[in-house]
C-alpha cells in the first residue's frame, strides 16, 4: 500500500508535468510593439473581422511602412510579430486578419466554390474585394502612416488565396509581394494551374514578387501539386516577375508558416 501511495504521487506529478509541457515562455504581443486592434464589419462579405496591427516600438512615423497583411491572423500574428522583432525590421508592420466570430477561412480563402468541401466555399473573390475596398483602406486610415509597399501572406488555403490574388485579373489588387506558405494548389481540381495558363495567353508579364514554400513532410499530394505548379510558373519566364520557391527540409504542414514568413521577408522591396 505504501508503494502504491508513492506510485500514485509519482503518477500525479507526471500527469501535471505533461500538462504543463507546452507552456513554455512566450512573448506577449504588447512587448513586441504598439498594438492597434479593432473590429471591422465588411458589407461585402457580411462578416466582422478582428484586425490587429503590430507597429514595432522602434518604428519612425516619418518612414513609409512596409505593410504585411497576414491571413489567419488569429493563429500566426504573435509569431510573425516575434520574427519582425527578432530580425529588427523596424519599418515592417504586420496586420493580422482574424475573425470576430466564427472562423470563415474556408469560405473566404477559396475560389471557385467546391461542392465537395464541407461548409461554405468559393468566397475568395468577395474577400478580395473586401480586402481592397474595405479592409486595407480602413486599416491604413486607422494607423495614419505613409505606406511604401503591401505584402499578402497566407498559409495552406490562405496560400492558395494569396496565389489566386496574384494570378486573377478581375480585381486590381494593391500587393507587390505575395508569400504563399504551403499553398493548397489542389483546390478545385488544380484550378490555379488553369488560371495561370489562361493568364499566360493574355500577357507575358506578371509584375510583382512571389515566394512559395512547401515542407517535404506534407505528404505526396501537396508536394506533387507544388512541384508541378512551380515548374509551370518557372518555365513561363514572365517579365517583371521575381519568383522564388523553396522546399523546406524536415518541415511539416503546421510548421511551415513561420519559417516561410521569415524567409519571405527578404523579397519585400
Amino acid at each position, binding site marked *: *500500500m505504501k*508503494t*502504491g501511495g508513492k*506510485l*500514485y504521487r509519482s*503518477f500525479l506529478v*507526471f*500527469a501535471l508535468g*505533461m500538462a504543463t*509541457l*507546452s507552456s*513554455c515562455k512566450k512573448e506577449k504581443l504588447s512587448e513586441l510593439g504598439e498594438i492597434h486592434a479593432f473590429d471591422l464589419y465588411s458589407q461585402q462579405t457580411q462578416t466582422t473581422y478582428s484586425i490587429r496591427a503590430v507597429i514595432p516600438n522602434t518604428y519612425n512615423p516619418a518612414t513609409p511602412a512596409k505593410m504585411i497583411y497576414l491571413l489567419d491572423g488569429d493563429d500566426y500574428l504573435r*509569431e510573425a510579430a516575434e520574427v519582425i522583432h527578432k530580425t529588427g525590421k523596424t519599418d515592417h508592420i504586420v496586420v493580422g486578419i482574424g475573425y470576430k466570430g466564427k472562423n470563415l477561412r474556408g469560405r473566404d480563402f477559396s475560389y471557385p466554390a*467546391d461542392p*465537395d*468541401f464541407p461548409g461554405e466555399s468559393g468566397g475568395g473573390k468577395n474577400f478580395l474585394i473586401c480586402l481592397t475596398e474595405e479592409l486595407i483602406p480602413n486599416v491604413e486610415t486607422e494607423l495614419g502612416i505613409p505606406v511604401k509597399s503591401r505584402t499578402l501572406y497566407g498559409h495552406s488555403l490562405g496560400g492558395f488565396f494569396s496565389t489566386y490574388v496574384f494570378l486573377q485579373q478581375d480585381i486590381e489588387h494593391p500587393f507587390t509581394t505575395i508569400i504563399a506558405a504551403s499553398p*493548397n494548389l*489542389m*483546390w*478545385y*481540381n*488544380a484550378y490555379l*494551374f*488553369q488560371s495561370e*495558363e489562361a493568364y499566360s495567353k493574355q500577357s507575358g508579364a506578371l509584375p510583382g514578387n512571389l515566394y512559395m514554400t512547401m515542407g*517535404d*513532410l*506534407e*505528404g*505526396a*499530394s*501537396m*508536394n*506533387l*501539386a507544388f*512541384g*508541378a505548379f512551380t*515548374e*509551370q510558373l518557372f518555365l513561363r519566364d514572365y517579365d517583371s516577375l521575381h519568383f522564388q520557391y523553396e522546399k523546406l527540409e*524536415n518541415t*511539416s*504542414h*503546421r*510548421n511551415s508558416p513561420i519559417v516561410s514568413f521569415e524567409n519571405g521577408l527578404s523579397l519585400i522591396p
Partner: protein
Amino acid sequence: MKKFIVIALTSLFSYGVSAQTDSTRKSHPFKLDFLLSSDFINTSYGSHFGSIVKAKWAIHSGQHLEWFMGIASRHSYLQESSNRFTEYVDGFTLDGGAYFVSELLLYPFRKKHFFIGVEPYAGVTHTFSKGTWKTDFDNHERTFKHHYTYFDYGISQSIGVRIRQFSIKCEAWLSLKGVLDGGRSRLADFDSRFLPSIGFGYYFN
C-alpha cells in the same frame, strides 16, 4: 451485425462484473494491446487508418495502480489518391515505428473495472510518401518520393474497462516530437501524429 456487437459486449461486461466480485484482482505478468487508429484531423489529405500493437510486462500491480513497461509498434496508411481536392494525385503516405512504452493504469473505484491510463513512449518513426501527378491538361507525369526517419516521443492517454483478462479501451496517441527542443509549436501533423484509437487488451498469466 450491430446488434450482435452490442449483445456480445454487454454479455462480456456483465460476465466480468458478476465474476469479479472480490476486490483482489489476480495479477498477470504480461499483457498485449491491439488498437485501431485514425487521424481525424488531416482527413482532407485522404482516408487514414492504422494499428498499434503493444506488449507489456507488469512492474507493479496494486490495489489501484498498475505499472507496465514494454514495447510498441505503430503503423498507419494515408490514401492520398482519395484526397478531397483533386483527382490528379495517385499516392500515399505510410508511417510507422517502434517504441519503448511505460504505462500507468489508475483504477479509481473500489471495484476495479474502470481505469484511466497514461503511457509515455519514445522510439523511432519512419515516414514514407510516394505518388504521381498527372493532369488532363498536361501529359507530363511527375513523381514524388520521400523518406524521413526521426526520434519520436509522446504520450498516450487511455480510458477503458477491465473485465477479467480482457480490457476494452479508447486511447489518444499524441506525438510531442519537437516540443522539447523548441522545434515546433503545433502538433497533430504528419510527423507528430494525433491518433484517436480504440481496441482491446489481453492479460496473460
